[in-house]
């Protein structure tokens, strides 16, 4: 006797839901496991007084995104007239347009 299509569909959907649930549990456990590593990284940021993630190393304004500058001539900030792929990938920091400093 062949299995009904509906049984197969519910089995497949159930298996996918189970897998998704297992992945959610994995995510939760991994977050707990990674907590000390994140604390260590936060400590490195504190002692070295770092300001940025090392995501891109091809241009200064994407290496140190938070320090990117909208005010300098030739506009060294992401999404300006772009030379580097990373500049078109990252958005400019929001504070560039609403800085405390007066725009020259």
């Amino acid at each position, binding site marked *: 006797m062949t299995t009904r299509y509906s049984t197969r569909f519910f089995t497949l959907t159930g298996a*996918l839901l189970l897998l998704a649930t297992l992945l959610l549990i994995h995510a939760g456990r991994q977050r707990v496991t990674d907590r000390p590593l994140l604390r260590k990284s936060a400590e490195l940021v504190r002692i070295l007084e770092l300001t940025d993630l*090392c995501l891109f190393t091809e241009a200064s304004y994407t*290496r140190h995104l938070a320090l990117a500058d909208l005010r300098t001539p030739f506009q060294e900030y992401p999404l300006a007239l772009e030379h580097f792929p990373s500049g*078109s990938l990252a958005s400019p920091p929001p504070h560039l347009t609403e800085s405390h400093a007066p725009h020259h």
Partner: protein
Amino acid sequence: MPHTIEKQRHIIDFTLASLLRRRGKNGALFTVYTLIVFILASVMFFTYALKEEAAQVLKGAPEIVVQRSLQGRYAPIPLEYAAKIRGIRGVMAVRPRLWGYYYDSVFLANYTIMTAESIPLPPGSIAIGHGISRMRRAYEGDTISFTGVDGKARNFTIAKILPQESQLLSADLILMNEDEYREFSGLPPGLASDLTLKVRNPKELTTIAEKIVKALPDSRPIIRNEILRTYDALFSWRGGLLIIIMSAAVLAFVIFAWDKASGLSAEEKKEIGILKAVGWETSDILFMKFWEGMTVSLTSFLAGTILAYGHIFFTSAALFAPVLKGWSVLYPVFRLTPFINPGQIATLFFLTVVPYTVTTIIPSWRAATIDPDSVLRS
């Protein structure tokens, strides 16, 4: 109740048998649908996990960084500025930071060189990030050579490799002593790259930043909240490459929906006509179409989301890596912590499964309300 369930199961049996009769077409639909969900979910998982990780690690960033601009460009800041800033009420400490970039013309890579008082290094020694160590195959105890500002090569002993787990912060870092940094980079005494501030009351950060600009008009303060917001806005949907990915995915869904909503094929209409002629109710046909949309979209959604999770958190976003590396020779190799936003998954579900299912039902409802005789004759 059991009768209703059994009826629905029969409708599902019939729907799936009907879908499997058009195996090629529906198989392609399932594949494309899964692929679109996979791309969207991958982008969502990656950007959210990266933002969360940035927020967690950068909460220890300096409260205020003060830079100076000269001739419209960033310039080293005189140490006298530190004394002036120290005089502002609410400022607890001002420290100069010494850092800059170094271009390695042999490996065509850019490094960030910093001084670090908190990591004691013997004279002539440096600490390097894991990315540099991997790229140059240089390890603890090895000697590494860099060309200074005077064009002369200097040898440094690697005293420490920064932890591999912190590559997302330190892959390109070189840490050295202050005296050696000044001599190597040519930064004269009395100048620093920028200043970092400790403030008594974090609520006063903005006020202090305003006072700094007033007292030193050529300075540019960046407060910690702005640093955190930078990474919160990174990879925002509104700009950059992500808008292209998003538009392509939305366009694909519009084509799907258009294909479904623009009407049924003659074959499908005939099928509905026959079903009505043999006694199916309009509601049964709508249920059949509901299950048709649901089976395709739900399984595609689940499969795409699961694959995306594996892609981002088990393979370290292997498919995105070439895009992120860009032209960089030196790049961090990092595994993201799986921070997941349930709201984003729910949004993805409602943006993919619901419209597809609805657009499957509506044209069928139109066909199901027409007299079967006229459908079969047309």
